[in-house]
């Protein structure tokens, strides 16, 4: 296994790299983290999109696109995610390894410079982001929010999280609201950019077949110029137990109803009990041998999908399924029965081993993709100690039966969300 190297850039800025020549590509990303807040979520969310479209050197969107095409279809991408109560704003560049460039170009050097320039040197006009790009990105961000409504599986999951965590920062959408985006002013975006580069916690990752040293130098120099000196803390609230279960039903013109059940697990990053919760979730509904798959789908034939997911940054567990309207309550009942089975210890060693092997298999696969490595290390930003995939696998293998039972008994039902369809396909 090829190791991860860590370098210190400045206060609150980490630089990690994995050089591995088995990849034919490179990927570098700069990930800014700030606490998610109602009044700043929208301005922050639009920033990576706005930055990714131009720089002083390439002020025109199409010219930047042409440059990337010339660099053998290299890409610059923007992304916004939530890690617990933290809003993570990412800009990444990816492209082929230098050895595949037909005319001896150094793709990694070019991409590193491009990434630095779009982040630190936007094409300001009188200190503001250009009007046309700003309007375009406002529209596109609103359309991104809209498109999440189109996929009812995604939509139902987000609604459940939003309702369940209405009084926590986690309940805020990653892009803020459509209304907030609409009302953004150019002036506040410049301020948000200043705040972001000076105050965010920043993780830089450089992965694949390239020498990380020159990339480090580019970013080191950029942050030196900036004199970044403060980093705002990014706490996540972990509500250990649900006081009472909430039920929420929404009606919509869809053929299939969706059921999403949210639970509090009591453990979140950086708790040690987290590994037991992960394994418990896998036994409950994480694999084709899980309780939910074998009972709700295979035995009762109620659905095509029924699975459980543990969101370790937030300490919550979500169960999702798509069912006929008439079967929604039956599915809910069966899901809760299966959780009780685990609480009572009604599972055998085969079930434990199957879940352990499945999880270890996916951990060990992490090192085979740059995207996998990137999410692996980013997801550990708030842990006490960074673990390699094989270290995490060893910890999972050591979880005991009793720890699984204990983890299940700490789970409390928080929110039942139903998206109820008319049952007919609209024509």
């Amino acid at each position, binding site marked *: 296994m090829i190791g991860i190297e860590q370098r210190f850039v400045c206060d609150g800025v980490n630089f990690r790299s994995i050089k591995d020549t*088995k990849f034919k590509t490179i990927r570098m990303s700069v990930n800014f983290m700030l606490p998610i807040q109602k009044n700043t979520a929208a301005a922050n969310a639009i920033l990576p999109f706005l930055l990714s479209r131009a720089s002083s050197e390439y002020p025109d969107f199409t010219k930047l696109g042409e440059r990337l095409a010339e660099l*053998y279809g290299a890409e610059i991408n923007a992304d916004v995610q939530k890690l617990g109560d933290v809003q993570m704003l990412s800009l990444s560049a990816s492209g082929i390894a230098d050895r595949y460039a037909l005319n001896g170009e150094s793709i990694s050097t070019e991409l590193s410079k491009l990434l630095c320039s779009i982040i630190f040197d936007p094409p300001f006009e009188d200190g503001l982001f250009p009007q046309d790009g700003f309007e375009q990105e406002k529209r596109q961000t609103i359309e991104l929010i809209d*498109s999440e409504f*189109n996929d009812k599986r995604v939509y139902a999951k987000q609604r459940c999280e939003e309702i369940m965590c209405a009084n926590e920062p986690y309940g805020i959408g990653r892009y803020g609201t459509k209304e907030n985006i609409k009302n953004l002013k150019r002036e506040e975006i410049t301020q948000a950019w200043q705040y972001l580069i000076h105050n965010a916690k920043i993780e830089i990752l450089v992965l694949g077949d390239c020498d990380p040293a020159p990339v480090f130098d580019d970013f080191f120099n950029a942050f030196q110029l900036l004199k970044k000196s403060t980093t705002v803390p990014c706490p996540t609230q972990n509500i250990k137990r649900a006081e009472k279960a909430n039920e929420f039903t929404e009606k919509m013109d869809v053929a299939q109803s969706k059921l999403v059940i949210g639970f509090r697990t009591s453990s979140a990053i950086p708790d040690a009990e987290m590994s037991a919760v992960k394994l418990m979730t896998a036994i409950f509904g994480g694999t084709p041998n899980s309780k939910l798959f074998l009972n709700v789908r295979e035995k009762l034939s109620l659905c095509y999908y029924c699975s459980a997911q543990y969101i370790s940054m937030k300490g919550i567990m979500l169960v999702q399924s798509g069912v006929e309207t008439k079967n929604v309550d039956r599915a809910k009942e069966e899901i809760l029965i299966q959780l009780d089975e685990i609480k009572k210890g009604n599972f055998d060693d085969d079930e434990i081993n199957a879940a352990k092997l*499945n999880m270890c298999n996916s951990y060990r*696969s992490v090192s*085979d993709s740059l995207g996998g490595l990137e999410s692996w290390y980013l997801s550990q930003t708030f842990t006490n100690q960074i673990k390699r995939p094989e270290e995490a696998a060893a910890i999972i293998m050591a979880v005991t039966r009793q720890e699984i039972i204990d983890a299940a008994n700490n789970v409390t039902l928080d929110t039942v969300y139903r998206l109820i369809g008319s049952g007919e396909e609209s024509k």
Partner: protein
Amino acid sequence: MNIVKEIKSDRIGDKYYEVDHSTGLKIFIYPKENNSSTYAVFGTRYGSIDTSFKTSDELEPNTVPAGIAHYLEHKLFESEDGDAFVRYAKTGASANAYTSFDSTCYLFSCTENVYESLEILLDFVQSPYFTEQTVQKEQGIIGQEIRMYDDDPQWRVLFNLLGAMYHNHPVKIDIAGSVESIAKITPELLYKCYNTFYNLNNMVLCVAGNVDYNKVLDLCDKILKPSKPLHLDKIFDEEPLEIVKSRVEQKLSVAAPIFQLGFKEPACKTRLTVQEIAETEILLEILASDASPLFRRLLDAGLINESSFSYEYFEGAGYASVIFAGESKDPDVVADEIKKEITKIRENGLDQAAFERSKKAVYGRVISSFNSVDYLANAMAADAFADRELFRYIDSVASADISSVQNRLNTQMKPEYSALSIVNPVD
């Protein structure tokens, strides 16, 4: 006797083995020694479009219900002595399967116990077991899978488009069939299809990753059961060049309209060459990539967004079309603009600089795809079914010339054969 061929690419710097196995099976093994995981696909050249067929032993053609290939895929996981997932649970492999228009593939990926997992794959795919009761049980599960797709606007907009373009070709029929068509599926019909199409002469095994080539072959020698020679006639009704209708609309629960614009082109049972596909890919890159004038115009007019606008060359046995897709407040205007740009390129010819740039961009993307064992195994299978070779594609991209790319327009993207499919929001 097994016949082995080594296939190398200097451009990629990799090699793989193609084996004509004595049982009739084609085997492809792509070693990646530094990978942690291995990915295997056991597939048959049999998909949703193969609903009418005749073997040389039969006098009359068989016609089977829509969705049967997909139904068979679900049911093959159950054998007389249990479920394949239960067996995989002991190796830790992550297993799955998919049915496409022209193939059905069973796969797993794993980091340990590779040969044990491969043995399970080869064994269960060769051990059909269908009873009234097990077939009946699947109706509920697949019924919910179909319902889920009924609500999926991306899926609906595609099939509505295919229905608008194709009069007779079964590509227009949903891969999973309908609740009504799958109700007609019986164990006898499943055995009929299984015995016809799951003949090793009609199948491939593709393995990519950290494997020992000899061990894979030894296992194949041990487990594969020789198949009788196969003389199979797949029957498709004549498909006219004309489209059915130029416009189709449906209302679904979406936030904004989504569209697909398709250009039907002549196609026969013999698949297109890699060169034709490479040329089309470059042509589409010039026409509609992020760096193209068309993309910029549509974006500035607020008619498309970066996250949803896409294009693809959709082709298979007896069908071929170029499809543009996205979300737009006014899909008709987008369709007109795309057609205008095509006319312009047809009349004025391609821009040399744009051609060179686009060629590099496509080249870089092909290089990048060779990182992933998932991609490699699936691509080797798809290529084998289309009588193509994996490494030839990148050579065709590198050697493409501007006039051949321009000439693709003689048969492609003719406005008179285009259809627009729109999914509008419910009022």
